[in-house]
């Protein structure tokens, strides 16, 4: 992916750029909003990673509003030290697609970057999701593996759906909390792990190949290959 990183802190910028490059992305890094807007409007990027508070008169929110006003719909991930709920809402309202509070674990950032960047441009009205021998029918809301029906709770269904829509990508615990439970705070204990392990038990019971994998220090991933 071609990613534009607008971040005024040199150290954080360098760290993020290096990490994203190691993950196989091309990264352009500019230190202020003016240059960021110039680049974002002039060139094609798959994703913008923006700090909210930027020097140069144009902050992250202004930048996104301007881009959206020009009809540019490149996905935007905000990085911000502003952690209040209202701040998050402000960022998303301005046209941001995701919001990550500093300090963050790089794995979290990478997972979110990949989730945003590989998002289908138009939500294809898929009715079935399939990974290996696991099938998810979105209309009848049923799960089958190897033709065998598996009973899941509604929430477990949503959890599985989210994992399968991002098959092959790391999905972090906070992402699951936000997307599946619509929680926007840290629940302190490992509640998500419990839910995932219950789902995993249901899916893998009686099958040789596990499908839901734990990615150390990051989160979970569903994929066919071990």
């Amino acid at each position, binding site marked *: 992916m071609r990613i534009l990183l607008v971040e005024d802190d040199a150290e954080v910028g360098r760290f993020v750029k290096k990490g994203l490059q190691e993950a196989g992305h091309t990264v352009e890094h500019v230190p202020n909003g003016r240059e960021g807007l110039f680049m974002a409007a002039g060139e094609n990027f798959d994703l913008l990673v923006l700090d909210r508070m930027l020097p140069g008169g144009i902050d992250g929110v202004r930048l996104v509003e301007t881009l959206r006003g020009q009809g540019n719909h490149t996905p935007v991930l905000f990085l911000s030290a502003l*952690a*209040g709920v209202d701040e998050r809402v402000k960022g998303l309202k301005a046209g941001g697609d995701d919001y990550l509070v500093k*300090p963050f674990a790089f794995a979290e950032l990478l997972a979110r970057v990949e989730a945003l960047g590989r998002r289908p441009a138009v939500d294809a009205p898929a009715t079935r999701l399939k990974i290996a021998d696991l099938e998810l029918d979105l209309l009848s809301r049923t799960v089958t593996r190897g033709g065998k029906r598996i009973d899941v709770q509604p929430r477990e269904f949503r959890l599985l759906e989210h994992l399968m829509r991002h098959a092959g990508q790391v999905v972090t615990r906070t992402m699951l909390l936000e997307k599946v*439970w619509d*929680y*926007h705070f840290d629940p*302190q*204990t490992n*509640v998500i792990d419990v839910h995932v392990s219950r789902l995993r038990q249901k899916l893998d019971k009686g099958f040789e190949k596990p499908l839901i994998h734990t990615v150390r220090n990051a989160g979970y991933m569903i994929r066919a290959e071990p």
Partner: protein
Amino acid sequence: MAPPPHPRPGHAAGRPPPHPVRRRVQQHPGPLWRLLSSTSFRIALLFATLFLLAGLAFTGVLWWGTAGTLERQIDAAIRADALALAERWREAGDDAVAEAISERLALDAEDQTAYLLTAPDGRRLAGNLEQLPEDYRTDIQWYAMTLLRDGIPGEARLYVVQLPDGSHLAVGRDVGEKLRLRALLTEGLAWSAGVAILFAFAGAWLLRRWLEERLIPATATAALIAGGDLSPRVPLAGRDDEFEALGRSMNTMLDRIAHLMEGVRGVSDAIAHDLRTPIARARSRLEEALETSDDPAALKGALERGIADLDNVTRVFQAVLRIAEVEAGARRAAFAPLDLVPLLADAAELYGATAEENGQTLRTEWPKSLPLTGDRDLLLQAIANLLDNAVKFTVPGGTITLSAEMQEDAVLIRVADEGPGLSAEDRQRVGERFFRADSARATPGSGLGISLVRAVVQLHGGMLWFEDGQGTQPDYPGLTVCLGLPVA
């Protein structure tokens, strides 16, 4: 700060003396100026002006009733006299009128009348007036003018009739009475205006003193607080007036400020208390790893633990800021009508799995719907925090109950566990930031959970209290946390 320049002796001679230090004289306004610029003076002045206007209106009516009546009477007399003379002229001619005029003048002991009869060519035939008014016009009959009697000026009104043959008859009367009356009224008004202004000043002074006296408690308290001591409050005398209201609202404001200050202090305490420890731990681990460990795996482990420690620091920091944000009341803007039931269901669903994993049972109990106005995210977080605690402290195999019910004007939420419970003293102290009961020392947690719950409940205008739990084992009496949230 440079020292002030000293004039050097050699240069001082032959020059004007060094510019005197311009002393900025603090301009103390005189007592009169202070009085004039005070609100009470303006109020008093307003009343004085109203008083004056009322006086003017009264005088106007009086004037209309006295001087006006006098004038109308005089005018009527003049007109009657003139008409009688004109009639006489038609009956008997110039000579009869001249005689009548002389007769009338002869009897005018007060010397207040004026008559004139002129021939068509303007010649004076009779009367004591020298001539018709210079600006006499045939279409105007009434004239007000100064009449000089032997050189002594007086005010008079004159009525002029043109007779059919072109001669003129003028009849007039002095109106000195009216002028005297006017002078009298003007004088009276001037006096009362003076008195009104005097009253304005005296009233302003009294009002000012009274206002100052009533405001002293508020201003004195404000001065003390400006001096740095936040504890004094405006003493209230128990009267039910505007000043008491001011004092009360000042006290409410001060309580709020003190509370916020405590919050700020709480944040710094938190940094001192709960952030130092993990930071120190992380630091010593990293240092130790740097100095002693040559084993890459051990080094990596130390680094990972260091990062975990830092994440914990961030978590505590986030929680402290969140509490401060909630306590500042900044989130009232996010209040909206909501149903508490799906919220409770979400929380129960999220923590139910964990409870089950621990071999605990999570029982739930609530009506179909619990309408409420509040902040969805914060309420959810508060309930989540309570469930988190309950799951943490309840013994394996124990039961946790999350229930809610609608009371008259409040929703009552209860989270009951089968944990070690809280002693009476500890219940008092729960909610102080970072308070952790001794029995909870071994359990992970920042001790900020209940603080946030308390802040959220306060933001919603509700109450938080504790009751005995549902535990059956002797060492685990359990604890019930109750939240009462007003519906409106």
